[in-house]
Protein backbone atom coordinates (compact mmCIF):
# COMPACT_ATOMS: atom_id res chain seq x y z
CA UNK A 1 0.00 0.00 0.00
CA UNK A 2 1.01 3.59 -0.54
CA UNK A 3 3.10 5.27 2.14
CA UNK A 4 5.39 8.23 1.79
CA UNK A 5 8.50 6.71 3.40
CA UNK A 6 9.38 3.08 2.85
CA UNK A 7 12.36 1.24 4.36
CA UNK A 8 13.34 -2.25 3.31
CA UNK A 9 16.01 -4.84 2.67
CA UNK A 10 17.54 -4.89 -0.81
CA UNK A 11 17.70 -7.53 -3.52
CA UNK A 12 20.15 -6.16 -6.09
CA UNK A 13 20.15 -7.10 -9.78
CA UNK A 14 21.82 -5.92 -12.99
CA UNK A 15 20.64 -4.47 -16.30
CA UNK A 16 17.96 -5.79 -18.69
CA UNK A 17 16.20 -8.08 -16.21
CA UNK A 18 13.52 -9.35 -18.59
CA UNK A 19 9.98 -10.52 -17.92
CA UNK A 20 10.81 -14.12 -18.88
CA UNK A 21 13.29 -14.47 -16.02
CA UNK A 22 10.96 -12.62 -13.64
CA UNK A 23 8.00 -14.82 -14.53
CA UNK A 24 8.59 -17.61 -17.09
CA UNK A 25 6.27 -17.83 -20.10
CA UNK A 26 5.36 -21.42 -19.33
CA UNK A 27 3.24 -20.24 -16.37
CA UNK A 28 1.76 -17.22 -18.13
CA UNK A 29 -1.40 -18.86 -19.40
CA UNK A 30 -2.06 -21.00 -16.34
CA UNK A 31 -4.33 -19.59 -13.67
CA UNK A 32 -2.08 -19.70 -10.59
CA UNK A 33 -2.97 -18.40 -7.14
CA UNK A 34 -1.07 -15.39 -5.75
CA UNK A 35 0.91 -17.71 -3.47
CA UNK A 36 1.88 -19.97 -6.38
CA UNK A 37 2.82 -16.97 -8.50
CA UNK A 38 5.05 -15.68 -5.70
CA UNK A 39 6.82 -19.06 -5.60
CA UNK A 40 7.93 -18.61 -9.23
CA UNK A 41 9.03 -14.98 -8.88
CA UNK A 42 12.49 -14.43 -10.43
CA UNK A 43 12.79 -18.20 -10.83
CA UNK A 44 15.15 -18.11 -13.82
CA UNK A 45 17.30 -15.27 -12.45
CA UNK A 46 17.69 -15.87 -8.72
CA UNK A 47 16.45 -19.20 -7.32
CA UNK A 48 17.11 -17.89 -3.76
CA UNK A 49 14.65 -15.03 -4.08
CA UNK A 50 11.24 -16.68 -3.77
CA UNK A 51 12.04 -18.70 -0.65
CA UNK A 52 13.83 -15.85 1.18
CA UNK A 53 11.99 -12.65 0.28
CA UNK A 54 10.35 -10.81 3.22
CA UNK A 55 7.36 -8.45 3.11
CA UNK A 56 8.55 -4.92 2.36
CA UNK A 57 11.80 -5.95 0.67
CA UNK A 58 12.99 -3.68 -2.12
CA UNK A 59 14.34 -4.67 -5.52
CA UNK A 60 17.12 -2.41 -6.78
CA UNK A 61 18.32 -2.90 -10.36
CA UNK A 62 20.11 -1.34 -13.29
CA UNK A 63 18.68 -0.20 -16.60
CA UNK A 64 15.68 -1.50 -18.57
CA UNK A 65 14.14 -3.54 -15.75
CA UNK A 66 11.14 -5.56 -16.97
CA UNK A 67 11.96 -5.53 -20.67
CA UNK A 68 10.25 -8.03 -22.94
CA UNK A 69 6.72 -9.33 -22.72
CA UNK A 70 3.72 -7.28 -21.54
CA UNK A 71 2.84 -10.01 -19.03
CA UNK A 72 1.53 -8.35 -15.91
CA UNK A 73 2.43 -11.34 -13.75
CA UNK A 74 6.02 -10.08 -13.92
CA UNK A 75 4.77 -7.27 -11.67
CA UNK A 76 2.13 -9.11 -9.67
CA UNK A 77 4.40 -12.06 -8.79
CA UNK A 78 6.77 -9.57 -7.10
CA UNK A 79 3.86 -7.79 -5.42
CA UNK A 80 2.50 -11.13 -4.14
CA UNK A 81 6.01 -12.06 -2.99
CA UNK A 82 5.84 -8.98 -0.76
CA UNK A 83 8.11 -6.57 -2.61
CA UNK A 84 7.33 -3.05 -1.37
CA UNK A 85 9.13 -0.84 -3.88
CA UNK A 86 10.90 -1.34 -7.19
CA UNK A 87 13.94 0.83 -7.87
CA UNK A 88 15.84 0.76 -11.15
CA UNK A 89 17.94 3.10 -13.25
CA UNK A 90 15.21 2.72 -15.86
CA UNK A 91 12.20 0.53 -16.56
CA UNK A 92 10.81 -0.89 -19.77
CA UNK A 93 7.71 1.02 -20.80
CA UNK A 94 4.94 -1.55 -20.36
CA UNK A 95 6.50 -2.77 -17.11
CA UNK A 96 6.48 0.79 -15.77
CA UNK A 97 2.77 1.11 -16.66
CA UNK A 98 1.94 -2.31 -15.21
CA UNK A 99 3.64 -1.48 -11.90
CA UNK A 100 1.71 1.77 -11.53
CA UNK A 101 -1.54 0.10 -12.54
CA UNK A 102 -0.94 -2.59 -9.91
CA UNK A 103 -0.24 0.06 -7.28
CA UNK A 104 3.35 -1.10 -6.81
CA UNK A 105 5.49 2.00 -6.15
CA UNK A 106 8.24 2.41 -8.71
CA UNK A 107 11.28 4.66 -8.56
CA UNK A 108 13.75 5.57 -11.29
CA UNK A 109 17.20 6.42 -10.00
CA UNK A 110 20.77 5.11 -9.78
CA UNK A 111 20.51 3.72 -6.23
CA UNK A 112 21.93 0.44 -7.55
CA UNK A 113 25.34 2.15 -7.39
CA UNK A 114 25.10 2.72 -3.64
CA UNK A 115 23.82 -0.52 -2.24
CA UNK A 116 24.46 -4.25 -2.07
CA UNK A 117 22.03 -7.13 -1.64
CA UNK A 118 20.98 -7.58 1.98
CA UNK A 119 21.58 -3.94 2.99
CA UNK A 120 18.76 -1.52 3.78
CA UNK A 121 17.58 1.51 1.86
CA UNK A 122 14.88 4.09 2.62
CA UNK A 123 12.70 5.64 -0.08
CA UNK A 124 11.12 9.02 0.66
CA UNK A 125 8.44 9.77 -1.90
CA UNK A 126 7.70 13.21 -0.47
CA UNK A 127 11.25 14.47 -1.05
CA UNK A 128 12.08 12.20 -4.00
CA UNK A 129 15.12 10.57 -2.39
CA UNK A 130 16.49 7.07 -1.95
CA UNK A 131 18.89 6.86 0.99
CA UNK A 132 21.50 4.12 0.63
CA UNK A 133 24.51 3.18 2.82
CA UNK A 134 26.74 4.99 0.33
CA UNK A 135 24.75 8.11 -0.42
CA UNK A 136 21.43 9.59 -1.40
CA UNK A 137 19.95 9.36 -4.89
CA UNK A 138 17.26 11.74 -6.12
CA UNK A 139 14.44 10.77 -8.39
CA UNK A 140 11.98 12.93 -10.33
CA UNK A 141 8.53 13.04 -8.76
CA UNK A 142 5.84 11.03 -10.53
CA UNK A 143 3.15 13.09 -12.25
CA UNK A 144 0.08 13.87 -10.16
CA UNK A 145 -1.98 11.68 -12.50
CA UNK A 146 0.23 8.67 -11.81
CA UNK A 147 0.48 9.43 -8.08
CA UNK A 148 -3.33 9.49 -8.06
CA UNK A 149 -3.44 5.90 -9.32
CA UNK A 150 -0.83 4.78 -6.75
CA UNK A 151 -2.68 6.54 -3.92
CA UNK A 152 -5.89 4.77 -4.88
CA UNK A 153 -3.98 1.46 -4.68
CA UNK A 154 -3.81 0.80 -8.42
CA UNK A 155 -5.83 1.25 -11.58
CA UNK A 156 -8.76 -0.98 -10.57
CA UNK A 157 -9.65 0.90 -7.38
CA UNK A 158 -8.89 4.12 -9.29
CA UNK A 159 -11.39 3.25 -12.03
CA UNK A 160 -13.96 2.09 -9.47
CA UNK A 161 -13.67 5.40 -7.68
CA UNK A 162 -13.99 7.31 -10.97
CA UNK A 163 -17.04 5.31 -12.01
CA UNK A 164 -18.57 5.78 -8.57
CA UNK A 165 -18.61 2.06 -7.73
CA UNK A 166 -18.30 1.36 -4.00
Amino acid at each position, binding site marked *: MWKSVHTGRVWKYGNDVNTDVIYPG*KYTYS*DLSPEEMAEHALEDLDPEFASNVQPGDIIVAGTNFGCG*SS*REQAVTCLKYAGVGVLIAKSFA*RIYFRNAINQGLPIVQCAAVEGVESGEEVAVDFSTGKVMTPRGDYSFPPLSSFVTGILEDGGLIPHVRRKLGIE
Partner: protein
Amino acid sequence: MGQTFAQKMLAQKAGLREVEPGQIVTVRPDKLLTHDNTAAIAKIFREIGVEKVARPEISVIVLDHVVPAATEGHARNHQQIREFVREQGIASFYDVGEGICHQVLPEKGHALPGYLIVGSDSHTPTHGAFGAFAAGIGRTEAAAVMATGEIWLMVPHTFRMSVKGQLQKGVYAKDIILYIIGELGADGADYRAVEFTGPVLGEMTIASRMVLCNMVAEMGAKIGVAEPDDKTRAWLNGRSDAGFQEVFADPDASYERAIEYDVSGLVPQVAKPHTVDNVVPVTEVLGTRIDQAFIGTCTNGRLEDFRVAAQILGGGKIAPTTRLLILPASREVLLAAVVEGIITELITAGAVVLNPGCGPCLGAHQGVMAPGEVTISTANRNFKGRMGCKEAQVYLASPATVAASALAGEIVDPREFL
Protein backbone atom coordinates in the same frame (compact mmCIF):
# COMPACT_ATOMS: atom_id res chain seq x y z
CA MET B 1 6.41 24.03 -34.58
CA GLY B 2 5.37 20.89 -36.46
CA GLN B 3 4.14 17.76 -34.76
CA THR B 4 5.42 14.20 -34.95
CA PHE B 5 3.12 11.32 -35.91
CA ALA B 6 2.73 10.39 -32.25
CA GLN B 7 1.88 13.96 -31.21
CA LYS B 8 -0.70 14.35 -33.99
CA MET B 9 -2.33 11.02 -33.26
CA LEU B 10 -2.57 11.49 -29.50
CA ALA B 11 -3.77 15.10 -29.81
CA GLN B 12 -6.49 13.99 -32.22
CA LYS B 13 -7.62 11.05 -30.08
CA ALA B 14 -7.58 13.15 -26.91
CA GLY B 15 -9.55 15.95 -28.58
CA LEU B 16 -6.71 18.46 -28.10
CA ARG B 17 -5.21 20.87 -30.61
CA GLU B 18 -1.65 19.79 -29.86
CA VAL B 19 0.30 17.85 -27.25
CA GLU B 20 3.92 17.80 -26.06
CA PRO B 21 6.21 14.85 -25.27
CA GLY B 22 5.88 13.88 -21.61
CA GLN B 23 2.27 15.06 -21.43
CA ILE B 24 -0.24 12.48 -20.15
CA VAL B 25 -3.47 12.34 -22.15
CA THR B 26 -6.63 10.31 -21.85
CA VAL B 27 -7.64 8.86 -25.21
CA ARG B 28 -10.38 6.73 -26.71
CA PRO B 29 -8.71 3.93 -28.70
CA ASP B 30 -10.19 2.71 -31.99
CA LYS B 31 -9.35 -0.93 -31.24
CA LEU B 32 -8.52 -2.99 -28.17
CA LEU B 33 -6.60 -6.17 -28.96
CA THR B 34 -6.54 -9.08 -26.50
CA HIS B 35 -5.71 -12.78 -26.97
CA ASP B 36 -5.49 -15.86 -24.74
CA ASN B 37 -5.09 -13.44 -21.84
CA THR B 38 -8.71 -12.30 -22.32
CA ALA B 39 -9.90 -14.72 -19.61
CA ALA B 40 -7.57 -13.10 -17.08
CA ILE B 41 -8.61 -9.65 -18.34
CA ALA B 42 -12.31 -10.57 -18.06
CA LYS B 43 -11.69 -11.61 -14.45
CA ILE B 44 -10.18 -8.20 -13.67
CA PHE B 45 -13.02 -6.53 -15.61
CA ARG B 46 -15.54 -8.26 -13.34
CA GLU B 47 -13.57 -7.16 -10.26
CA ILE B 48 -14.09 -3.57 -11.35
CA GLY B 49 -17.80 -4.23 -10.96
CA VAL B 50 -19.08 -3.09 -14.37
CA GLU B 51 -21.71 -5.32 -16.03
CA LYS B 52 -21.18 -4.53 -19.68
CA VAL B 53 -18.12 -3.71 -21.77
CA ALA B 54 -18.29 0.02 -22.51
CA ARG B 55 -17.44 -0.23 -26.23
CA PRO B 56 -17.71 -3.86 -27.40
CA GLU B 57 -17.29 -2.71 -31.01
CA ILE B 58 -13.62 -1.81 -30.43
CA SER B 59 -12.74 -5.17 -28.88
CA VAL B 60 -10.91 -7.68 -31.10
CA ILE B 61 -10.11 -11.03 -29.51
CA VAL B 62 -7.86 -13.61 -31.17
CA LEU B 63 -7.01 -17.00 -29.66
CA ASP B 64 -3.41 -17.58 -30.71
CA HIS B 65 -0.99 -18.12 -27.85
CA VAL B 66 -1.59 -21.77 -26.96
CA VAL B 67 -3.76 -23.14 -29.77
CA PRO B 68 -5.19 -25.72 -29.99
CA ALA B 69 -5.21 -25.99 -26.19
CA ALA B 70 -2.17 -27.89 -24.90
CA THR B 71 -3.68 -28.87 -21.53
CA GLU B 72 -7.03 -28.94 -19.81
CA GLY B 73 -6.07 -25.68 -18.12
CA HIS B 74 -5.53 -23.98 -21.47
CA ALA B 75 -8.82 -25.44 -22.74
CA ARG B 76 -10.69 -24.01 -19.75
CA ASN B 77 -9.04 -20.67 -20.42
CA HIS B 78 -10.30 -20.70 -24.02
CA GLN B 79 -13.74 -21.80 -22.83
CA GLN B 80 -13.98 -18.85 -20.44
CA ILE B 81 -13.04 -16.49 -23.28
CA ARG B 82 -15.74 -17.88 -25.58
CA GLU B 83 -18.29 -17.42 -22.78
CA PHE B 84 -17.15 -13.83 -22.21
CA VAL B 85 -17.39 -13.09 -25.95
CA ARG B 86 -21.01 -14.40 -26.06
CA GLU B 87 -22.01 -12.66 -22.84
CA GLN B 88 -20.62 -9.29 -23.97
CA GLY B 89 -21.72 -9.49 -27.61
CA ILE B 90 -18.19 -9.03 -28.96
CA ALA B 91 -18.44 -9.49 -32.73
CA SER B 92 -14.74 -9.51 -33.64
CA PHE B 93 -13.72 -12.85 -32.15
CA TYR B 94 -11.30 -15.17 -33.96
CA ASP B 95 -11.10 -18.68 -32.56
CA VAL B 96 -8.34 -21.32 -32.73
CA GLY B 97 -6.72 -21.61 -36.14
CA GLU B 98 -7.32 -18.13 -37.55
CA GLY B 99 -3.79 -17.04 -36.77
CA ILE B 100 -1.64 -14.71 -34.70
CA CYS B 101 -3.39 -11.55 -33.53
CA HIS B 102 -0.81 -9.28 -35.19
CA GLN B 103 -1.55 -10.90 -38.56
CA VAL B 104 -5.29 -11.41 -38.09
CA LEU B 105 -6.07 -7.80 -37.14
CA PRO B 106 -4.73 -6.34 -40.41
CA GLU B 107 -6.15 -9.18 -42.51
CA LYS B 108 -9.63 -8.65 -41.06
CA GLY B 109 -9.48 -4.90 -41.52
CA HIS B 110 -8.99 -3.90 -37.88
CA ALA B 111 -5.61 -2.20 -38.31
CA LEU B 112 -6.04 0.91 -40.45
CA PRO B 113 -4.05 4.10 -41.01
CA GLY B 114 -4.77 6.72 -38.37
CA TYR B 115 -6.19 4.17 -35.91
CA LEU B 116 -5.16 4.19 -32.28
CA ILE B 117 -4.78 0.54 -31.26
CA VAL B 118 -3.90 -0.69 -27.79
CA GLY B 119 -3.25 -4.36 -27.22
CA SER B 120 -2.42 -6.55 -24.25
CA ASP B 121 0.58 -7.91 -26.12
CA SER B 122 4.03 -6.40 -26.34
CA HIS B 123 4.24 -6.83 -30.13
CA THR B 124 1.20 -4.65 -30.77
CA PRO B 125 3.47 -2.03 -32.45
CA THR B 126 3.39 -4.37 -35.50
CA HIS B 127 0.25 -2.54 -36.67
CA GLY B 128 2.28 0.63 -37.12
CA ALA B 129 3.22 -0.88 -40.49
CA PHE B 130 -0.21 0.35 -41.63
CA GLY B 131 0.20 3.87 -40.28
CA ALA B 132 -1.61 3.13 -37.02
CA PHE B 133 -0.51 4.25 -33.56
CA ALA B 134 -0.34 0.83 -31.93
CA ALA B 135 1.02 0.29 -28.43
CA GLY B 136 1.25 -2.64 -26.05
CA ILE B 137 -0.46 -2.40 -22.66
CA GLY B 138 -0.91 -4.63 -19.61
CA ARG B 139 -3.85 -6.79 -18.60
CA THR B 140 -5.26 -4.55 -15.90
CA GLU B 141 -5.33 -1.55 -18.19
CA ALA B 142 -6.96 -3.66 -20.92
CA ALA B 143 -9.69 -4.45 -18.38
CA ALA B 144 -9.96 -0.75 -17.57
CA VAL B 145 -10.37 0.01 -21.31
CA MET B 146 -13.20 -2.53 -21.37
CA ALA B 147 -14.82 -0.80 -18.39
CA THR B 148 -14.34 2.82 -19.48
CA GLY B 149 -13.54 2.83 -23.22
CA GLU B 150 -10.48 5.01 -22.54
CA ILE B 151 -6.86 4.83 -21.39
CA TRP B 152 -4.05 7.11 -20.21
CA LEU B 153 -0.99 7.41 -22.44
CA MET B 154 2.15 9.47 -22.15
CA VAL B 155 3.08 11.36 -25.31
CA PRO B 156 6.42 9.87 -26.38
CA HIS B 157 9.51 11.52 -27.80
CA THR B 158 10.23 10.33 -31.33
CA PHE B 159 13.23 8.85 -33.12
CA ARG B 160 13.08 9.26 -36.90
CA MET B 161 14.96 6.44 -38.66
CA SER B 162 15.64 6.97 -42.33
CA VAL B 163 16.72 3.87 -44.24
CA LYS B 164 18.45 4.29 -47.59
CA GLY B 165 20.69 2.29 -49.91
CA GLN B 166 20.31 -0.98 -51.79
CA LEU B 167 19.78 -4.20 -49.84
CA GLN B 168 22.11 -6.97 -51.02
CA LYS B 169 20.75 -10.35 -52.07
CA GLY B 170 20.11 -12.48 -48.96
CA VAL B 171 19.61 -9.46 -46.70
CA TYR B 172 16.13 -8.54 -45.48
CA ALA B 173 14.07 -6.31 -43.19
CA LYS B 174 14.88 -8.70 -40.33
CA ASP B 175 18.59 -8.05 -40.79
CA ILE B 176 17.97 -4.28 -40.79
CA ILE B 177 16.02 -4.29 -37.55
CA LEU B 178 18.41 -6.72 -35.82
CA TYR B 179 21.28 -4.43 -36.80
CA ILE B 180 19.45 -1.35 -35.45
CA ILE B 181 18.61 -3.09 -32.15
CA GLY B 182 22.22 -4.25 -31.86
CA GLU B 183 23.38 -0.65 -32.31
CA LEU B 184 20.86 1.02 -29.99
CA GLY B 185 20.53 -1.70 -27.35
CA ALA B 186 17.54 -3.36 -25.69
CA ASP B 187 16.46 -0.06 -24.11
CA GLY B 188 17.81 2.20 -26.86
CA ALA B 189 14.34 3.49 -27.72
CA ASP B 190 12.64 3.05 -24.34
CA TYR B 191 9.26 4.81 -24.26
CA ARG B 192 9.98 6.40 -27.67
CA ALA B 193 8.00 6.39 -30.87
CA VAL B 194 10.00 5.27 -33.91
CA GLU B 195 9.08 6.69 -37.32
CA PHE B 196 10.57 4.64 -40.17
CA THR B 197 11.08 6.46 -43.42
CA GLY B 198 13.37 6.64 -46.44
CA PRO B 199 13.57 5.01 -49.88
CA VAL B 200 14.10 1.48 -48.55
CA LEU B 201 10.80 1.69 -46.66
CA GLY B 202 9.04 2.74 -49.85
CA GLU B 203 10.49 -0.24 -51.71
CA MET B 204 9.61 -2.67 -48.93
CA THR B 205 6.58 -4.95 -48.92
CA ILE B 206 3.96 -4.47 -46.22
CA ALA B 207 5.11 -7.77 -44.68
CA SER B 208 8.66 -6.40 -44.35
CA ARG B 209 7.42 -3.15 -42.80
CA MET B 210 5.60 -5.33 -40.27
CA VAL B 211 8.94 -6.96 -39.37
CA LEU B 212 10.46 -3.56 -38.55
CA CYS B 213 7.49 -2.31 -36.53
CA ASN B 214 7.08 -5.66 -34.74
CA MET B 215 10.60 -5.57 -33.40
CA VAL B 216 10.71 -1.97 -32.13
CA ALA B 217 9.41 -3.57 -28.92
CA GLU B 218 12.84 -5.20 -28.55
CA MET B 219 14.51 -1.81 -28.14
CA GLY B 220 11.84 -0.63 -25.72
CA ALA B 221 9.81 1.54 -28.10
CA LYS B 222 6.17 2.38 -27.47
CA ILE B 223 5.28 2.34 -31.16
CA GLY B 224 6.89 1.97 -34.58
CA VAL B 225 5.25 3.42 -37.64
CA ALA B 226 5.67 3.40 -41.41
CA GLU B 227 3.99 6.04 -43.57
CA PRO B 228 0.99 4.73 -45.51
CA ASP B 229 1.42 4.73 -49.30
CA ASP B 230 -0.09 3.07 -52.38
CA LYS B 231 1.18 -0.33 -51.19
CA THR B 232 -0.64 0.13 -47.89
CA ARG B 233 -3.86 1.14 -49.65
CA ALA B 234 -3.62 -1.79 -52.08
CA TRP B 235 -2.97 -4.26 -49.24
CA LEU B 236 -5.98 -2.98 -47.26
CA ASN B 237 -8.26 -2.79 -50.28
CA GLY B 238 -11.43 -4.82 -49.68
CA ARG B 239 -10.53 -5.72 -46.08
CA SER B 240 -12.67 -3.14 -44.29
CA ASP B 241 -15.73 -1.02 -44.90
CA ALA B 242 -14.64 1.49 -42.30
CA GLY B 243 -13.26 4.75 -43.59
CA PHE B 244 -9.90 5.95 -42.36
CA GLN B 245 -7.82 9.07 -42.35
CA GLU B 246 -4.08 8.80 -42.91
CA VAL B 247 -1.91 10.73 -40.47
CA PHE B 248 1.59 11.93 -41.34
CA ALA B 249 4.23 13.73 -39.30
CA ASP B 250 4.73 17.38 -40.20
CA PRO B 251 7.87 18.05 -42.26
CA ASP B 252 9.10 20.46 -39.56
CA ALA B 253 8.33 18.14 -36.63
CA SER B 254 10.87 18.10 -33.83
CA TYR B 255 12.69 14.80 -33.22
CA GLU B 256 14.71 13.73 -30.23
CA ARG B 257 17.00 11.88 -32.64
CA ALA B 258 17.15 11.56 -36.41
CA ILE B 259 19.23 8.58 -37.50
CA GLU B 260 20.14 7.61 -41.03
CA TYR B 261 21.03 4.06 -42.01
CA ASP B 262 22.63 3.13 -45.33
CA VAL B 263 21.94 -0.59 -45.68
CA SER B 264 23.93 -1.14 -48.90
CA GLY B 265 26.77 -2.85 -47.08
CA LEU B 266 24.63 -4.72 -44.56
CA VAL B 267 25.22 -8.48 -44.28
CA PRO B 268 22.85 -11.03 -42.70
CA GLN B 269 22.62 -10.48 -38.93
CA VAL B 270 22.13 -12.90 -36.03
CA ALA B 271 21.09 -12.18 -32.43
CA LYS B 272 22.97 -14.57 -30.14
CA PRO B 273 21.59 -15.90 -26.82
CA HIS B 274 20.21 -14.53 -24.52
CA THR B 275 19.34 -10.97 -25.51
CA VAL B 276 17.95 -9.52 -28.72
CA ASP B 277 20.59 -6.77 -28.81
CA ASN B 278 23.43 -9.33 -28.78
CA VAL B 279 23.72 -8.95 -32.54
CA VAL B 280 26.63 -9.99 -34.80
CA PRO B 281 27.08 -10.50 -38.53
CA VAL B 282 26.24 -14.10 -39.47
CA THR B 283 29.89 -14.59 -40.41
CA GLU B 284 30.82 -14.52 -36.71
CA VAL B 285 28.66 -17.51 -35.78
CA LEU B 286 29.17 -19.73 -38.83
CA GLY B 287 29.31 -23.42 -37.92
CA THR B 288 27.28 -23.14 -34.71
CA ARG B 289 25.51 -26.52 -34.41
CA ILE B 290 21.70 -26.35 -34.34
CA ASP B 291 19.10 -28.90 -33.23
CA GLN B 292 16.02 -27.02 -34.33
CA ALA B 293 15.17 -24.39 -36.93
CA PHE B 294 11.96 -22.43 -36.62
CA ILE B 295 10.35 -20.25 -39.32
CA GLY B 296 7.19 -18.39 -38.38
CA THR B 297 5.72 -16.07 -35.67
CA CYS B 298 4.31 -12.56 -35.79
CA THR B 299 7.73 -11.38 -36.91
CA ASN B 300 8.44 -13.65 -39.89
CA GLY B 301 5.54 -16.00 -40.57
CA ARG B 302 4.25 -14.48 -43.81
CA LEU B 303 4.11 -15.61 -47.41
CA GLU B 304 7.33 -13.87 -48.47
CA ASP B 305 9.13 -15.60 -45.59
CA PHE B 306 8.01 -19.08 -46.67
CA ARG B 307 8.72 -18.25 -50.31
CA VAL B 308 12.38 -17.59 -49.54
CA ALA B 309 12.49 -20.68 -47.32
CA ALA B 310 11.09 -22.82 -50.15
CA GLN B 311 13.53 -21.25 -52.59
CA ILE B 312 16.41 -22.38 -50.37
CA LEU B 313 14.99 -25.74 -49.22
CA GLY B 314 13.10 -26.76 -52.36
CA GLY B 315 14.46 -30.03 -53.79
CA GLY B 316 16.78 -30.51 -50.82
CA LYS B 317 16.60 -32.22 -47.44
CA ILE B 318 17.23 -30.69 -44.03
CA ALA B 319 20.19 -32.06 -42.08
CA PRO B 320 19.37 -35.39 -40.36
CA THR B 321 20.31 -33.90 -36.97
CA THR B 322 17.95 -30.94 -37.33
CA ARG B 323 14.18 -30.46 -36.89
CA LEU B 324 12.53 -27.73 -38.97
CA LEU B 325 9.28 -26.17 -37.72
CA ILE B 326 7.08 -24.06 -40.00
CA LEU B 327 4.47 -21.83 -38.38
CA PRO B 328 2.32 -19.69 -40.68
CA ALA B 329 1.09 -16.45 -39.10
CA SER B 330 -2.49 -17.01 -40.23
CA ARG B 331 -4.94 -19.23 -42.04
CA GLU B 332 -4.77 -16.81 -44.98
CA VAL B 333 -0.97 -17.13 -45.13
CA LEU B 334 -1.12 -20.93 -44.81
CA LEU B 335 -3.72 -21.23 -47.57
CA ALA B 336 -1.75 -18.98 -49.91
CA ALA B 337 1.39 -21.06 -49.20
CA VAL B 338 -0.53 -24.25 -49.95
CA VAL B 339 -1.88 -22.85 -53.22
CA GLU B 340 1.62 -21.76 -54.30
CA GLY B 341 3.01 -25.23 -53.61
CA ILE B 342 5.36 -23.86 -50.96
CA ILE B 343 4.03 -26.13 -48.22
CA THR B 344 4.56 -29.22 -50.39
CA GLU B 345 8.17 -28.19 -50.98
CA LEU B 346 8.82 -27.52 -47.30
CA ILE B 347 7.25 -30.77 -46.13
CA THR B 348 9.18 -32.71 -48.76
CA ALA B 349 12.37 -31.08 -47.50
CA GLY B 350 11.62 -32.47 -44.03
CA ALA B 351 9.68 -29.66 -42.32
CA VAL B 352 6.99 -30.11 -39.68
CA VAL B 353 4.12 -27.70 -40.44
CA LEU B 354 2.32 -26.38 -37.36
CA ASN B 355 -1.08 -24.72 -37.26
CA PRO B 356 -1.25 -20.90 -37.36
CA GLY B 357 -0.61 -19.45 -33.91
CA CYS B 358 2.23 -18.37 -31.63
CA GLY B 359 3.47 -21.96 -31.28
CA PRO B 360 6.95 -22.58 -29.91
CA CYS B 361 7.88 -18.88 -29.70
CA LEU B 362 6.87 -18.47 -26.05
CA GLY B 363 7.81 -21.93 -24.85
CA ALA B 364 4.36 -23.09 -23.76
CA HIS B 365 3.98 -25.98 -26.23
CA GLN B 366 5.02 -27.26 -29.68
CA GLY B 367 8.76 -27.52 -30.10
CA VAL B 368 9.81 -26.92 -26.50
CA MET B 369 13.55 -27.45 -26.18
CA ALA B 370 15.69 -29.75 -24.01
CA PRO B 371 18.72 -28.66 -21.95
CA GLY B 372 21.77 -28.02 -24.13
CA GLU B 373 19.76 -27.74 -27.35
CA VAL B 374 20.11 -24.89 -29.82
CA THR B 375 17.37 -23.35 -31.97
CA ILE B 376 17.76 -20.80 -34.74
CA SER B 377 14.49 -18.93 -35.06
CA THR B 378 12.83 -16.14 -37.01
CA ALA B 379 11.02 -14.96 -33.86
CA ASN B 380 11.65 -11.72 -32.01
CA ARG B 381 12.94 -12.93 -28.61
CA ASN B 382 15.76 -15.17 -27.48
CA PHE B 383 15.61 -14.65 -23.72
CA LYS B 384 16.82 -17.37 -21.41
CA GLY B 385 13.97 -19.86 -21.01
CA ARG B 386 11.98 -18.24 -23.81
CA MET B 387 11.41 -21.52 -25.64
CA GLY B 388 10.57 -23.41 -22.47
CA CYS B 389 14.03 -24.40 -21.19
CA LYS B 390 16.52 -22.11 -19.50
CA GLU B 391 19.46 -24.37 -20.36
CA ALA B 392 18.68 -24.09 -24.08
CA GLN B 393 19.93 -21.46 -26.54
CA VAL B 394 18.03 -19.42 -29.12
CA TYR B 395 19.59 -17.53 -32.04
CA LEU B 396 17.45 -15.08 -34.05
CA ALA B 397 17.80 -14.49 -37.78
CA SER B 398 15.97 -13.96 -41.06
CA PRO B 399 13.92 -16.75 -42.69
CA ALA B 400 16.67 -17.17 -45.31
CA THR B 401 19.36 -17.66 -42.67
CA VAL B 402 17.17 -20.08 -40.73
CA ALA B 403 16.21 -22.11 -43.82
CA ALA B 404 19.80 -22.37 -45.01
CA SER B 405 20.95 -23.34 -41.51
CA ALA B 406 18.30 -26.11 -41.42
CA LEU B 407 19.83 -27.58 -44.59
CA ALA B 408 23.34 -27.47 -43.16
CA GLY B 409 22.58 -28.46 -39.55
CA GLU B 410 24.62 -25.47 -38.43
CA ILE B 411 24.43 -21.71 -38.80
CA VAL B 412 25.43 -20.72 -42.34
CA ASP B 413 25.45 -17.61 -44.52
CA PRO B 414 22.24 -17.66 -46.60
CA ARG B 415 23.87 -15.73 -49.43
CA GLU B 416 25.61 -18.95 -50.46
CA PHE B 417 22.25 -20.69 -50.88
CA LEU B 418 20.42 -18.14 -53.06
